[in-house]
Structures are given as structure tokens and as C-alpha cells.
């Protein structure tokens, strides 16, 4: 039988008419929703966590701030376009994420380690794997959650631009097409950046190292690639520019969208890849996403209990 446990005196405040009865241990005979429900719960918890929801106030600051920083330029552009009755938006939908890449990188760097390094550092992972979910479920939930969080971050300003463009009575068909192309582009970017961020973060239980490593990989690769492209441009070897672009995540996305999504390339001299080179870009992007997923699976096979 239940051992009666006296409630601490502080629980019963004077004037409180409700009484708490200890009714002993009750068995649970309700539904157990199993593996896919658990995976979805982990997904939604991780997605909310990526914006600090359900966590401390302190951990809400940075992601929310970055979200605002991401959207404010779009709002200003829209305001200018409406006020000046411009014929088109100052920036293409596909170009917006490329311009704001520093903010996106910062977001990945801060939230990827938050998502996976904490579980490793505090050894929470074994608790997950002692439950119905499997390694693959954990990896999928975490990957999908960060990719979704990034999509929210990158698609929100596009929505601001689109709504603004419609309010400014710009051409509907034109804007809708550009908006759709922009969404495809940021979806691809979200998957790619989430994969890279999570793979790096899952190697280290230390959050600080994770943040530094993600920033280093994203910015150094972009810096190196754009420097080389500038040199190639200066030496008039324009043919090399698209190939160099394969070596950093941002330029990869830029290449894919200028080849297939009607974007103008941000490469020097707008020397974006043609459709032949563009196919290579798409393959590399898809290959990197798959590799990221594969590496995460391998990593968590080892973590176990």
C-alpha cells in the first residue's frame, strides 16, 4: 500500500481551501504511442529549443535577435519600395539569403551545438536510446528540427518581401515566381547548413568548440573561395570561377540557384555556372546533405549507452 507522505508545510498556504490527498501510486494504462510519436516529440522539442522556447530566457535572446536582424532589412526594403512606388524590389528573393549569410552562419553556429552538443555533454543520449526510438530516429528528428528552424529563419524575410511586393502592387505572377524560387533555394540552403552544422557539433561535447568550429568552417571556406574567385577574375580565367565555387556552402547555393532558379550570380563578373556545371552543383549539394546524414548516423551508432 501507499506510504503516506506528508506534504511539506509550505505547500499548504493558509486560506488555501484545496487539499491535496496523497492517493498512492497509480498505474498507467493509457495509450503508449510508440516510436514515431516519440520521434515527432523530439522533433518539436528540438525545433522549439532552436528558438529558445521551453528554455531559459537567456537562451531565447540570441536566436530571437538573429531572427529580427534577418527580417528588418526586408521590412526596410519593402517600406522603401512602397514609399517610392518602385517597379521592382531592390533585391531578388534568391539573393536575400546570400546577402544575409553572416546572420545565417551565426545562427547555425549557435543553435547546432545547442541541439546536439548538450545531449552529448550531459550524457542525455543514453536516456533516449533506452527508450523505443532508434539511432536513425534521433538523427532524423535532430536534423529535421534544425533544418526547419533554419527554414523559418530564411523564409520569414522572403514572406515579408512577398507580402510587401503585393502591397506595393508589383506584378503578381512575376513576384510569385520569384518568391517560389526563393523558397526552394532557402530550403536547400537550410538542409545543407543544418547538415554541416550538426556534423561538426556532434563531434564535440563542448558547446564553445562547436560554435567556433561551425563559424570557422562556414566563413573561412567562403572567404577562401571568394578570394580565389576574385583572383581568377583578375587574371581573366573566368572559366575557373564556377568550379572554385563548389568549395563553400554559400557559393554552392548561389551556383545552384543561378543555374536553375533564375537568380543572378553573386560570383565576380556574375560568372555563375551554366546548366552543365549547375548539374554538378546540384549533385554536390545533394551529396553533402546525404554525407551529413550518413556521418551523423555513424557518429550516433557509436554513442549508444
Amino acid at each position, binding site marked *: 500500500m501507499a506510504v503516506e507522505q506528508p506534504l511539506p508545510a509550505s505547500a499548504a498556504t493558509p486560506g488555501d481551501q484545496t487539499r491535496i490527498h496523497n492517493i498512492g*501510486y497509480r498505474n498507467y494504462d493509457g495509450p*503508449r504511442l510508440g516510436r514515431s510519436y516519440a520521434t515527432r516529440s523530439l522533433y518539436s522539442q528540438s525545433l522549439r529549443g532552436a528558438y529558445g522556447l521551453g528554455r531559459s530566457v537567456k537562451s531565447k535572446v540570441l536566436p530571437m535577435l538573429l531572427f529580427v536582424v534577418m527580417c528588418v532589412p526586408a521590412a526596410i526594403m519593402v517600406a522603401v519600395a512602397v514609399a517610392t512606388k518602385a517597379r521592382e524590389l531592390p533585391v531578388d528573393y534568391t539573393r536575400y539569403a546570400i546577402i544575409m549569410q553572416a546572420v545565417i552562419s551565426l545562427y547555425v553556429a549557435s543553435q547546432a551545438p545547442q541541439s546536439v552538443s548538450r545531449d552529448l555533454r550531459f550524457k*542525455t543520449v543514453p*536516456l533516449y536510446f533506452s*527508450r*523505443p526510438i*532508434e539511432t536513425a530516429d534521433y538523427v532524423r528528428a535532430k536534423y529535421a528540427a534544425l533544418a526547419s528552424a533554419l527554414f523559418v529563419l530564411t523564409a520569414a524575410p522572403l514572406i515579408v518581401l512577398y507580402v510587401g511586393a503585393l502591397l506595393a502592387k508589383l506584378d503578381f505572377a512575376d513576384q510569385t515566381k520569384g518568391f517560389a524560387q526563393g523558397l526552394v533555394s532557402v530550403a536547400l540552403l537550410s538542409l545543407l547548413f543544418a547538415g554541416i552544422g550538426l556534423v561538426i557539433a556532434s563531434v564535440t561535447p563542448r558547446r564553445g568548440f562547436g560554435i567556433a568550429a561551425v563559424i570557422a568552417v562556414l566563413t573561412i571556406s567562403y572567404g577562401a573561395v571568394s578570394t580565389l574567385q576574385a583572383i581568377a577574375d583578375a587574371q581573366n580565367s573566368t572559366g575557373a570561377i564556377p568550379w572554385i565555387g563548389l568549395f563553400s556552402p554559400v557559393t554552392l547555393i548561389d551556383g545552384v540557384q543561378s543555374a536553375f532558379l533564375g537568380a543572378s550570380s553573386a560570383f565576380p563578373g556574375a560568372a555563375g555556372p551554366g546548366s552543365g556545371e549547375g548539374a554538378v552543383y546540384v549533385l554536390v549539394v545533394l551529396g553533402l546533405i546525404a554525407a551529413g546524414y550518413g556521418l551523423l548516423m555513424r557518429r550516433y551508432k557509436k554513442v549508444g549507452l
Partner: protein
Amino acid sequence: MVRVTSVDGVTVIATESLSKRFPRVTALDRLSVDIGPGVTGLVGANGAGKSTLIKILLGLSPATEGRAEVLGLDVASEGAAIRERVGYMPEHDCLPPDVSATEFVVHMARMSGLPPAAARERTADTLRHVGLYEERYRPIGGYSTGMKQRVKLAQALVHDPRLVFLDEPTNGLDPVGRDEMLGLIRRIHTDFGISVLVTSHLLGELERTCDHVVVIDGGKLLRSSSTTDFTQTTTTLAVEVTDTDEHPDGTRALREALHARGVTVEAGSGLPGAGHILLLTAQGEETYDLVRDVVADLGLGLVRMEQRRHHISEVFTEDEQRKEAAVHGS
């Protein structure tokens, strides 16, 4: 106390020549053991294969050889079903410091498949049962070791499993915390009706808590018996008395008096306060009464009479001594 226990012939865990070999070590060596409902202690020195066994029983690590069943489910093919019905409390720290116990346990309940409303309700219930009240809304980072152990236990119980694996739950606790945790473990079975497999490297603390004790060493089964068998052969009492004017050496007087009544007594050498402590083997309740009466008759003050906590190695040496004795005797 209603004992929701011992349905005849029910086996909670069964292993059959279960082996686990790693390239360099053999963690489990043809282990065959049947464990029934109730609280079962799994005792072994560090590296004896306790954690490896739990991993295999959770269906997370394939056995090299042999088979095992948990709650009638095969570990190799029905791991997910086992993990839905079983709880696990790891030995190491596993709690994020920046969330509250409530949030953490709710999340873990949902990871076990409980719908959101049920997860919240069960979390409140379970935390209360393990003895966490107002503090459950504060971040775990500020908890004492004892409170953290309670949260770890709560996450293992929140989905109302039929069996829990508790890996070294008393690690790092002070004596009071240890006793509270052992009492809680006992209640998991008597009050909640959940069977328990609890590991420890200390036999003494398990003797008092468990119905059954399994001792493994080097991955081999050394012994599997109910605790009543165990305590009969292994309980040692440590007795310390004061000196009086009548008996300037109280310890010696007590030893002689006990000798006269046919109880073998050793001096507790090598212990703190050696020379003042007598060790005797308890044969059951009568021994306690006898010591009490003898001490009272002599007019001595009884400073302490306590069960000595055995270290697992003592069981091994005692076992060997007994075997030798048996060989010489025959």
C-alpha cells in the same frame, strides 16, 4: 504492505549461456540466470560485466552468443518493445542543468510514448513519489546529488514500466541519502508493483533491499540465490561495548561470555577502533537477542551493534574458504 509479487513460475529476465566478447576482453561468459519478479541485486566488482548485461537486456548491444529474454520478449528481435516496458537509470550523470526537473521528466515521458497530458500528469505523480516537491520547478543545475538521483529515478519510472534497471543508484550518496534511496527502491516493488534489477558493487546494501542477489565476476555467474540464504551465511555483526568498573575490559568480558554460550567471536582487527570491536556471525534474529541479553547481564553499555557492510571481495574469499572447507571435510 500488499506485495504485488512472486506469481509462481513467472520469469522477468532469463539468459541462456549469454556471452559478449570484445576484441580484447570477454565481458560476459556463458551467463545463464533466471530472475523472477521482485527486487534483484546484481553484484559485481567494477568491470564484472554488469553494465554490459544491462545493455544487452535493453536490446542495444547484440550478444556474441546465447540468448536472453526480458518480460518474455527476445532481446535480439524485440528490443523496441522491451524498451517501451522497461525503465533505465544510468550510473553516470545524465541531466541537463538548465531545465527544471518537471520539464525534463515530461520530455522523457513523451519520449517513452506517453501523450502530452498523460506525460504531465505522470511526471507530477512520479516526482512526488520519489520525494521532489517545490524544487521540481527549479533548474536541475542547483540540485544536490541526492535530488539529482531522484530525478534520474523519476525519468526511469515515469512511463510506469514493468521492470526498471537501476545502475549503481547509491553512487555518490552520503549514508543518509543511501538509506533513503534503498528505501525508495524497496518501495518501487512493494508499492508500485514494478520489478527492479539494481546493480551495486556493495553487497551489504543490497542484502537489506533485495529479494534475490545475483553475483557475477569476470562475466561469469558466481552465485544466484535469495537474500535469506545470503544473509544467513554472510551477515556479520560488529559489536562494541563500554568498560565498567566491574569489567575493566568490557570487550574481553563480552567475548568470554559469548564464548560460554557457544558463539564464535573474532576481534575486529584492521577496523577503526580495532580491539574494541567484536565480530560475530549472525545466525538470525536469535543472535541479536543473545548479544543484547549478554550485554545486559554483564551490565555493559552497548555502543553499537550493526551489520557490517560487506565488500564484494569478501564474498568471494568466503566462498573459496567454504569450498576448501568442504573439500577438507569430505
